[in-house]
């Protein structure tokens, strides 16, 4: 069985949740061998991360290099090529960093690459079976990967639950000397923080959230009218921002805002995992979508199969009636 490594994402000395999730994936692939963590970075933060990782990882490989103070994937890729043994299995979170790093890394390692994995289905010799999704989550697929020359596997954040494991005696091994000077033809300059919008959707208890099912910009007012009578704010999914119907500050999801409302009304939103990743605090989720197979219905509490362009005006009218009655 090839040795399994996890690439550890960390920020400000704090280990990302994905580290424990990747350890669970490693144990699904190989229950016998404790996995090895690889941590790259620089300074006191790096030591804090290495020491907090010891369980459930058997070994923590620490790579300290001033060039890795910011995780530029171009530099991390070179680093991993120098540090990893032949034919490794490397697990990486499928986030903006994993998307940047892993496909190219698999080429440099001459290893297989499997992206955005959400299930481990079994291993038979050099053949690892996994579960992925395609077509925006509308269907799933079993894929088989030949791991005989190693594999880089990007794992969907949140898809695996961390396991309770008994602490094992583990050790930090400094691999920094294997790396040497690093240069890249892509240089990190700065992080540009998102602009605050006119409405702070993270502070609302009720969100009327709209997706591609709204069809066009001229229909957004249907959601705004409903939000007004409900005392809610209008948020949205990525396609609405891409189409410039609403500002980026209204977007819920991994590349937008994380919200914690009490009620989330998903209107014409299919339910891509990147969108769901931005909905926290287990709100009461009501989904309206004309496609009965939309993935949003898998996670919603209540569902209505209907065209939002017809259903929202009905809701608004009814809500106005109810408020009118309540006022008397």
């Amino acid at each position, binding site marked *: 069985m090839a040795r399994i490594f996890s690439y550890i994402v960390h920020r400000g000395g704090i280990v990302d949740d994905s580290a424990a999730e990747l350890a669970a994936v490693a144990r699904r692939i190989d229950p016998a061998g404790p996995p090895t963590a690889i941590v790259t970075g620089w300074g006191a933060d790096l030591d804090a991360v290495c020491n907090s990782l010891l369980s459930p990882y058997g070994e923590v490989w620490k790579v300290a290099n001033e060039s890795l103070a910011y995780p530029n994937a171009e530099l991390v890729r070179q680093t991993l090529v120098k540090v990893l043994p032949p034919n490794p299995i490397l697990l990486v979170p499928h986030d903006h960093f994993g998307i940047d790093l892993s496909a190219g890394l698999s080429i440099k390692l001459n290893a297989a690459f499997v992206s955005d994995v959400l299930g481990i289905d079994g291993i038979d010799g050099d053949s690892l079976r996994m579960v992925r999704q395609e077509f*925006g989550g509308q269907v799933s697929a079993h894929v088989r990967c030949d791991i005989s020359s190693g594999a880089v596997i990007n794992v969907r954040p949140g898809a695996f639950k961390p396991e309770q494991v008994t602490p094992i005696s583990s050790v930090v091994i400094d691999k920094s000397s294997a790396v040497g000077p690093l240069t890249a033809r892509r240089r990190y300059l700065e992080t540009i923080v998102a602009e605050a919008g006119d409405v702070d959707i993270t502070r609302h208890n009720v969100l009327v959230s709209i997706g591609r099912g709204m069809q066009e910009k001229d229909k957004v007012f249907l959601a705004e009218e409903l939000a007004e009578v409900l005392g809610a704010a209008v948020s949205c999914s990525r396609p609405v921002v891409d189409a410039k119907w609403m500002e980026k500050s209204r977007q819920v999801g991994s590349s937008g805002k994380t919200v914690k409302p009490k009620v989330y009304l998903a209107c014409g939103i299919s339910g891509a995992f990147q969108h769901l990743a931005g909905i926290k605090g287990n709100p009461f989720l009501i989904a309206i979508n004309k496609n009965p197979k939309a993935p949003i219905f898998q996670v919603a509490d209540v569902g209505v199969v209907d065209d939002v362009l017809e259903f929202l005006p009905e809701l608004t009218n009814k809500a106005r009636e109810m408020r009118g009655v309540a006022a008397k």
Partner: protein
Amino acid sequence: MEILVCMRRVPDTSENEIELNVAGNDIERDELVYSVNEADNYAVEEALQIRDRVGGNVTVVTVGGEDDEEVLRRELAMGANQAVLISDEEFSGSDGRGIATILKDFVQRGNYDLVLTGVQADDGAAQVGGMLAAMLDYPFASLVNSITVDGEKLKVSREIEGGNRELNEIDLPCVLSIQTGINEPRYVGMRGIRQVASVPISLLGASDLGVEKTAVGEVAAKVRRLDYFVPAPSKGAEMLHGRREENAHKVLELIAARGGLK
């Protein structure tokens, strides 16, 4: 600037409900509406805008079959200078690495300063751009949501968490994978497509590119999809099956019970 955009024709998920076929081994492909992969269309628009600012040419290329001519022609109508269809029976069953290998051989025949792909296609793998860059030994950036040309370099921002952006400087030649929303792709009507109906599309095969046959196709694929399936539904939503007015009333009661509709 010589710009290449690698693109794909895919089932349009905004137009189709994707379902399994009767045998359960594939999706039902009859009557699917196909279109340009959404992120690829943004990549083409970005290439056209860069060309219009700094000069040069935009070439669009796809690895596929004759059905894919329609999307190449659509991107010609948008304003691409040339279109290339790479097609060969040898390529059938290629995984992402195989497709990247074919594109690598094509890129090396040309003189491109900038290679763009969409960040991901219908399989959500987001892999070909990064693989292509590694094979060419070009620098790479993914999830790119703005590009500024600065001499022999580009300034590109990448989409990271929380709506923040990571600003990078990258040397040319390079490969970038383009995120949706980077621009507003121009509209292409039937009239525009008719106007480019007679523009020739170059057709290239494995031998034209010198593709190593052992590096592509089903034999070379390290990763293979075995089947499609629909997972057994989890608890799922309680579906409301009433008339529209009844459903609306029920939804409002539920919202009111949780503090909305004050």
